[in-house]
């Protein structure tokens, strides 16, 4: 009794607090402090605690008490929920609920160099740190209803616009006044790689977005430490404020998730990553980020593959992703990745439960699903004391269901939010959707009745053999009425009757068009869409099932390989092995690229990634996993090195400013590019991935080994020097870009020179300032304007300090000469001129400057500046004593660089050995990696290629490409893979055909061709490119 009094006291006390508000009332005040008590319910307190036959008492929007046999205050409305279940209201941590749609302002195609945001904001329009969701939020009844129907009670909402998107707010989905809906006005800081509505040119590329974000972190911390505050910057100020919040980063692909995490590591931020659904394709890497995720349940629908030709448009990765996407959440759960689940990304929110249940049927545990929809998002948003569980004092957000929330037949009756009830379905509603054996009238013909659609908007069709007729159907409680016309009916037949469950059936009577009464009955025969049946997959046997489903391959596209190579490719590709402890190639002609020249009938022994021995006769290795290759009649060369490549990149040009020295190609390596494999088949083992040539100072290069299957980070050439792309001539002055691109500096070769003088002058001053600041005493530093790190100038300064080296796109002699002059006067050397088609005209000057050359074999006549290009260039430069390479700049040509090198024999008469060096040792020298690769020498990396013929002959084919002693391309295995790909495709296509037959929706296949990057490629859709 004492307790009850105490309770009552507490209630009145709480009421006194809640009672006041600021808004005037039109009419009489309608305050309602009625207490509700829900009794006899199964109460799911949280994923770990269930109270059978429990009670929940709520008042003033809060949970007052929860438990069994708890006292119910007098004057409560008592709701008996016998047989029903109460769950905590669900939380969606990734929505734009109640946000206005934003549109990109178009500048009519003209460049927009500066930000359009007027005021004391930062310089870049894509940094919208000041964007607070709370200020833009207005409740949206229609959208709220959509979420409520799914069981959601609270959401994180934010403006989905920009790279830094400002703060998101957590709001409830009740339709009270906005002021009462806000649970946390600044709940999280939001980020993405997508510049959104910003029409400002910079950034135009993925690596530009990353660079901008990096610089913003630096600027913000500089701004914070600057006590003098000579400028006020709303954006940076807001950015600093955001840092104390949970940080949420949107990724639209597994690789972008890894990229986001990498930025986080640099600035000591652990992002919560909004996932994309293909994380399973690089799960190990995803796991090792240690990030939490917010995961969509947006699974691709099947392709219509009935037309065998059209089916070719659907790639193996799409086929496999269709099959495996539903397993993503299970895979993450099993690997201990913490994630919330969101309804975001779904074209139709109504698919949420269907898809989530699908994920569960693929192994996701119901417990995990519940956690991911309740307490995990609550914790992510620092609201675990308010939402996500049914505990005393928390907000009264809960849903009342007919049973287990994750069960297909379960109905959500009511969704209570902040103590307000929203009715979803009548308590008496029975889910009658499904197929029925249906008969009516005296004929006793068996028809099929198909009922589908939403519970409150059922759609039914009558099937008699192949004939179909629409049926109007209305259900109210346990009664049902239908009307329809059949071919023979001469009018409308009307039926009414009762529904009974367990087993589900309907029967009753009705009238035919002529007025005679008939009997009818319908017996449930199964669900409409034959989704994967839960009981068909035993969770503990899921590993087996996964094999039947196909395996994850690395990378996730055709010619990808299963990760555990040594185990063999089991079901997918039999006995595919690449990882050996040793490889011995016997009786082969070795093109050493060393003083020894070409050695005939040699044995080459490779182990632990190195060339260990070259000799006449080497005995078979005694290691368990050793491979002996007969090289009789074959040729072994060092792996081909492409000095100028744009494969394996997600983005290539950030040409929006004259200098984009801050962008890094290493940020956007795309390990999933099929051209990596194709180039392996042409003997390429190392490539320099260059920024494009759209601006005088491009971005920082990445040097990779073509380790097909590995992650972007694992592909990088270890401890290679840093390089940077420069460019001269027509591309940087935008000569061939149309009439609108005449604004960005420079537009002439005269301007190009000034860009360099300006950049290097500023870089020198930057260094002076940096040193001056570093020399200050701690005391002086406290009052001085702090030093601001500038990543662009830092990269340029690295060139001056010989820590970064230039690869410069160039054509005509005047500009080549110019850059060497800039270099001589500013104190740097141009490491490599690339393309350099008029290099032969200034070979003497290049020699004096110690510049190298990387050129095309025979390209010319495609633009004005290559008018004097000659195929003798490589030979002339070589003979003039310049380290000369031949490069591809082209994904196709990259796989026959040996042939391009051979042209230097034809044009200019280089020896075969010298010609081969153009694509092996010489590019290695230009890239400063010749100590490790470029020749066949004991101790060097085992990056070698076995050719069927003289490697410079058009008739030579690559038989094996070996990197780090591992076989990455094997012509024999390639043939096996082709048939395995065919089989795997055929298997999934059969499945898709079944899916279509079952009546599931399908999409038409569309041809997708990956965009190939060359120097001048500019693109804005980089976010869509990840294939």
């Amino acid at each position, binding site marked *: 009794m004492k307790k009850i009094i105490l309770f009552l006291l507490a209630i009145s006390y709480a009421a006194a607090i809640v009672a006041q508000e600021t808004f005037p009332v039109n009419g009489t005040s309608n305050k309602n402090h009625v207490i509700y008590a829900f009794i006899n319910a199964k109460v799911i307190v949280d994923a770990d605690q269930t109270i059978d036959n429990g009670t929940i008492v709520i008042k003033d929007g809060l949970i007052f008490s929860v438990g069994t046999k708890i006292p119910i205050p007098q004057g409560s409305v008592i709701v008996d929920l016998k047989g029903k279940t109460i769950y905590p209201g669900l939380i969606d941590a990734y929505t734009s609920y109640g946000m206005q749609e934003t549109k990109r302002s178009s500048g009519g195609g003209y460049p927009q160099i500066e930000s359009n945001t007027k005021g004391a904001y930062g310089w870049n329009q894509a940094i919208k740190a000041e964007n607070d969701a709370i200020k833009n939020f207005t409740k949206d009844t229609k959208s709220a209803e959509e979420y409520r129907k799914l069981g959601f009670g609270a959401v994180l909402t934010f403006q989905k616009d920009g790279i830094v998107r400002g703060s998101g707010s957590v709001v409830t989905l009740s339709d009270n006044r906005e002021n009462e809906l806000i649970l946390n006005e600044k709940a999280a800081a939001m980020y993405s790689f997508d510049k959104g509505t910003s029409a400002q040119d910079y950034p135009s590329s993925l690596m530009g977005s990353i660079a901008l974000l990096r610089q913003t972190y630096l600027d913000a911390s500089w701004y914070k430490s600057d006590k003098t505050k000579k400028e006020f910057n709303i954006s940076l100020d807001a950015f600093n404020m955001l840092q104390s919040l949970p940080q949420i980063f949107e990724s639209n692909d597994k690789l972008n998730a890894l990229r986001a995490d990498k930025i986080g590591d640099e600035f000591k931020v652990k992002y919560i990553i909004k996932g994309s659904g293909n994380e399973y394709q690089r799960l190990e890497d995803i796991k090792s980020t240690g990030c939490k995720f917010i995961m969509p349940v947006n699974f691709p629908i099947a392709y219509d593959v009935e037309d065998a030709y059209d089916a070719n448009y659907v790639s193996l990765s799409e086929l496999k992703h269709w099959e495996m996407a539903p397993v993503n959440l299970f895979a993450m759960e099993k690997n201990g990745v913490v994630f919330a689940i969101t309804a975001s990304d779904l074209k139709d929110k109504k698919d949420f439960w269907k898809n989530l249940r699908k994920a569960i049927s693929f192994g996701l545990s119901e417990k995990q699903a519940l956690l991911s929809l309740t307490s995990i998002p609550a914790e992510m948003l620092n609201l675990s004391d308010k939402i996500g569980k049914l505990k005393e004092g928390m907000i009264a957000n809960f849903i009342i269901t007919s049973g287990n929330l994750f069960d297909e037949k379960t109905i959500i009756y009511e969704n209570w939010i902040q103590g307000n009830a929203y009715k979803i379905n009548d308590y008496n509603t029975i889910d009658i959707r499904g197929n029925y054996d249906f008969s009516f009238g005296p004929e006793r013909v068996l028809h099929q009745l198909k009922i589908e659609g939403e519970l409150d908007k059922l759609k039914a069709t009558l099937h008699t053999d192949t004939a179909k007729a629409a049926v109007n159907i209305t259900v109210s409680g346990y009664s049902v009425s239908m009307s329809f016309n059949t071919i023979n009916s001469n009018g409308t037949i009307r039926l009414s009757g009762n529904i009974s469950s367990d087993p589900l059936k309907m029967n009753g009577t009705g009238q035919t068009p002529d007025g005679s009464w008939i009997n009818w009955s319908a017996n449930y025969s199964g669900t409409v869409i034959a989704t994967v049946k839960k009981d068909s997959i035993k969770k503990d046997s899921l590993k087996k099932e996964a094999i039947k489903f196909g395996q994850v391959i690395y990378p996730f596209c055709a010619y990808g390989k299963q990760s555990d190579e040594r185990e063999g490719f089991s079901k997918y590709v039999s006995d595919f092995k690449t990882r050996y402890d040793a490889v011995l190639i016997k009786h082969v002609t070795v093109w050493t690229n060393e003083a020894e020249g070409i050695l005939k009938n040699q044995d080459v022994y490779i182990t632990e990634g190195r060339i260990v021995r070259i000799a006449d006769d080497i005995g078979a290795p005694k290691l368990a996993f050793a491979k002996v290759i007969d090289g009789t009649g074959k040729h072994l060369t060092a792996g081909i090195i492409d000095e100028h490549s744009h494969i394996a990149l997600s983005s290539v040009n950030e040409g929006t400013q004259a200098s984009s020295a801050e962008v890094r190609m290493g940020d956007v390596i795309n390990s999933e590019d099929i051209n990596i494999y194709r180039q392996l088949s042409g003997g390429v083992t190392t490539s320099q991935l260059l920024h494009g040539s759209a601006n005088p100072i491009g971005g920082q290069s990445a040097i990779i080994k073509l380790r097909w299957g590995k992650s972007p980070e694992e592909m990088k050439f270890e401890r290679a020097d840093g390089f940077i792309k420069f460019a001269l001539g027509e591309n940087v002055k935008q000569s061939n870009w149309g009439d609108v691109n005449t604004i960005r500096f420079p537009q002439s070769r005269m301007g190009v020179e000034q860009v360099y003088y300006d950049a290097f002058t500023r870089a020198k001053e930057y260094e002076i300032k940096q040193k001056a600041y570093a020399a200050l005493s701690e005391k002086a530093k406290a009052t001085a304007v702090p030093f601001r790190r500038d990543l662009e100038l830092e990269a340029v300064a690295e060139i001056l300090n010989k820590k970064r080296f230039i690869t410069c796109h160039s054509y005509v002699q005047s500009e080549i000469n110019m850059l060497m002059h800039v270099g001589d006067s500013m104190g740097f050397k141009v490491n490599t001129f690339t393309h350099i088609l008029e290099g032969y005209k200034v070979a*003497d000057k290049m020699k004096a400057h110690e510049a190298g050359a990387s050129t095309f074999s025979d390209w010319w006549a495609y633009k004005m500046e290559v008018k004097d290009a000659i195929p003798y260039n490589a030979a002339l430069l070589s003979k003039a004593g310049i380290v000369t390479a031949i490069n591809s700049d082209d994904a196709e040509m990259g796989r026959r660089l040996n042939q391009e090198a051979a042209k230097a024999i034809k044009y200019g008469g280089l020896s075969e050995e010298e010609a081969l060096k153009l694509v092996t040792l010489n590019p290695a020298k230009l890239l400063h990696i010749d100590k490790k690769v470029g020749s066949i020498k004991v101790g060097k990396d085992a990056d070698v290629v076995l050719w069927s013929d003289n490697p410079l002959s*058009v008739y030579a084919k690559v038989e094996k490409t070996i990197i780090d002693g591992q076989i990455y391309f094997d012509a024999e295995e390639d043939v096996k893979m082709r048939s395995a790909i065919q089989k795997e495709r055929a298997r999934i296509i059969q499945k898709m055909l079944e899916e279509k037959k079952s009546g599931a929706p399908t999409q038409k296949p569309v041809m997708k061709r990956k965009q190939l990057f060359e120097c001048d490629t500019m693109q804005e859709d980089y976010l869509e490119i990840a294939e």
Partner: protein
Amino acid sequence: MRKLILLTLLVTSTFTFAQKSVLIMNGTAHIGNDSIIQNSLIGLKDGKIVLVADATTAKLDKSAYDEVIDAGGKHIYPGFIAPNSTLGLTEIESVRATNDFRETGTTLPNVRSLIAYNTDSKIIPTVRSNGVLLAQITPRGGLVSGTSSIVTLDGWNWEDAAYKTDDGIHINWPTIQSRKYLDEDNIYPGPFEKNKDYVKQTDLLKKLFADAKAYTESADKVEANLRFEAMKGIFSGTQTLFIHSNTVKEMVEAINFAKQNKISKVAIVGGKESWMITDLLKQNEIAVIISRLHDLPTYQEDDIDLPYKLPYLLQKGGVLYCLNNEGDMEAMNTRNLPFLAGTAATYGLTKEQALRSITLNTAKILGIDKSTGSIESGKDATVFISTGDALDMRSNNVERAFIKGRDIDLNNDQKVLYEKYKTKYGIK
């Protein structure tokens, strides 16, 4: 009509003045029809090949020739033929003023490439010096691009370069799926999507051909229609209809279209997926002018060497085929035509079959095989001598070349610059 007669007269009457007769001895002759004569005698006289014999067996009167070339250890080939080329119609791709291969409009059968063919293009001598001695100069764009002509790669002007005037009409079969561009200027390529105008475009072609045919057959021509006039040869069988198409569905429709219009001479240009329909092509005697071999496969899962082995797949399927070089930088790249054939030999064909794909097969498809395409007695003296295998860049080195018996200048601007700068640096 009178004009046409005049033109034909001009073509046949050029260069009838006396030429030096030449005997090429002891070289390996690659005939072009799959056969080789290891130690050969080849006589050229009055613009024609007058002798093709095995030196080990034939008797010979050296004095009958003005010049005797000892080609011992060297190789002799019929002049290579580049079909479907824009050589001479463009000089510098990115400079609009130099481009003459595309006219505005959709159906332009009457637009003729020959008269825009610039014999003084600086690119042509660089192509000739790799063994390519004939080309089919072809307009581009629209649904019906226009009329091509075959030229020899020498000549003072287009009139005397003309080898077969107005040999065929080129149509671009509409694509069922087309690329969507992300911007208004069609610079940023986006994904492919269904071509909504496919039916409209094919209907336009069907109507054009039906109308042109009726016009041709009509006795009463009230007003002359230049477009229809230009198509006469297609229906009478004197011209070839070149259908540019790559995917199976489109090719099948295009073949049906040609059949319905009772067009006797048809060739597919492109034919990337033609290996999937070899029976259909064979049955209908439709040849394929294969798109540039040095290309990436269309689909990720395609055999990585699919473009390289396409000639082999057609050979196996019994389809007549030859190689062309359309694509990026195609004019300057024409000089690499021999190496496309070399690649075809690496990927399935024999070397002689590969040679055939740029000589006799091409001549057959273009309807000029009676007079050129192989080293056979009575054919034009269009041959060249290379010091090594001309299909391999490692050894392609053309020393002498003859077009209809004319001794061709193998120098070009690039060689001039080479010599100039060799001198500058004192390189030997």
